[in-house]
């Protein structure tokens, strides 16, 4: 009865069943609550199929999804392509109109490094600790990019933690914002920003690429693609390329990214006590990054004439544009005339750049 010996049903373990439940929960949250559905839906499906026994989908050299993972993620192809699409979506106008807000994106990386230090103190290796710390940047592709190179065995857990916390920004950030600011501070109305010229927007991606890559060469794969996508957008002479990178290409790579990241989460990889730690430390990183951004904004207010609403510091974590929207909502609760969305987009974009620089520094020192 060779057929019966090959029944997958006979190889089901408790671990597989638990992973199916996790997969179905993510799929449920993606469909019914629309929590980051573009990523959590394929990730959930990837988890489900990777934990069906005897499929060989993730068998090295043979499995279908392993090929997506190997050539897409391990070869550092997909995260930079996601950044190409993000760049084509991004308007740097809010950042260029208020350059001082870029420091809030740097401050938010404080959570990344503090968590890195704490994770290492808890016994994680330096590479693992860096991968856990970068969750605080709330940037999925950067987390995946770094994890694939430093701690591939943690990739699935870190990616799911990053995307989960990005989806939970409206729940996690407001209590921290209210705790660290007064009603008066939240009600601050910021001075109207100047208009940014087209010429500035075209030159910025070129100049920023050169500056960042000259300082942190290891960040080149992400930052060059990000700025190339932005140049497509701002130059306005390659509308077909902008449209493709912004829509078709981004959607295609998102499918393969989600599916292959989910498929790395086998029961043996995921059902471990240290994964629980990763989720806790990831949350700590995210909360600390939010707090660091807020506190730097308060500090800057001690030295500046035009006051910054400290809430915009919370948008220094990447999570574009969710964090900026949450800042706007909390600011409007304090002062109905407050319109913080465009101000918060500045630190939000600075957070993306800051997280890429932080990842580049980790790679430089640990690879």
């Amino acid at each position, binding site marked *: 009865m060779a057929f019966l010996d090959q029944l997958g049903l006979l190889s089901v373990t408790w671990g597989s069943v638990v992973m199916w439940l996790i997969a179905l929960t993510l799929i449920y949250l993606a469909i019914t609550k629309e929590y980051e559905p573009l990523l959590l839906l394929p990730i959930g499906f990837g988890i489900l199929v990777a934990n069906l026994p005897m499929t060989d989908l993730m068998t090295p050299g043979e499995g279908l999804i392993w090929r997506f993972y190997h050539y897409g993620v391990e070869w550092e192809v997909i995260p930079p392509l996601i950044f190409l699409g993000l760049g084509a979506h991004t308007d740097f106008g809010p950042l260029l109109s208020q*350059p001082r807000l870029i*420091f809030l994106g740097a401050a938010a*990386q404080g959570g990344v490094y503090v968590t890195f230090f704490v994770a290492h*103190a808890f016994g994680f290796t330096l590479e693992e600790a860096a991968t856990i710390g970068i969750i605080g940047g709330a940037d999925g592709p950067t987390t995946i990019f770094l994890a694939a190179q430093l701690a591939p065995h943690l990739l699935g857990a870190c990616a799911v933690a990053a995307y989960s916390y990005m989806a939970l920004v409206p729940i996690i950030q407001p209590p921290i914002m209210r705790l660290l600011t007064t009603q008066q501070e939240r009600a601050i109305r910021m001075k109207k920003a100047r208009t940014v*010229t087209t010429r500035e927007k075209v*030159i910025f991606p070129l100049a920023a690429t050169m*500056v960042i890559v000259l*300082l942190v060469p290891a960040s080149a794969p992400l930052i060059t693609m990000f700025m190339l996508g932005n140049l497509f957008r701002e130059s306005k002479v390659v509308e077909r390329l902008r449209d493709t990178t912004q829509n078709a290409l981004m959607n295609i790579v998102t499918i393969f990214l989600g599916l292959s990241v989910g498929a790395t989460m086998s029961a043996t990889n995921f059902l471990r006590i240290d994964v629980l730690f990763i989720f806790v430390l990831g949350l700590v990183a995210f909360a600390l990054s939010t707090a660091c951004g807020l506190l730097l904004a308060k500090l800057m207010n001690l030295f500046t004439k035009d006051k910054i609403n400290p809430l915009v510091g919370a948008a220094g974590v990447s999570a574009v544009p969710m964090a900026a929207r949450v800042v706007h909502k909390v600011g409007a609760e304090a002062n109905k005339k407050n319109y913080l969305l465009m101000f918060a987009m500045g630190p939000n974009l600075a957070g993306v750049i800051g997280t890429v620089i932080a990842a580049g520094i980790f790679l430089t020192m640990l690879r």
Partner: protein
Amino acid sequence: MDTASSIFLNGIAGVFTGIAVLYVMMKMLSLVAGRSAPGSAPPAPKTD
């Protein structure tokens, strides 16, 4: 732990240095390209 401290300090310093250089670059960019060129205003509509 020494290595961790070194990465921690280098990381914080590196991120702030990178961002500070970008800040200077953006300020220079606003000086060089931040104002519309003279005469770049759209021409008045023809009345005939």
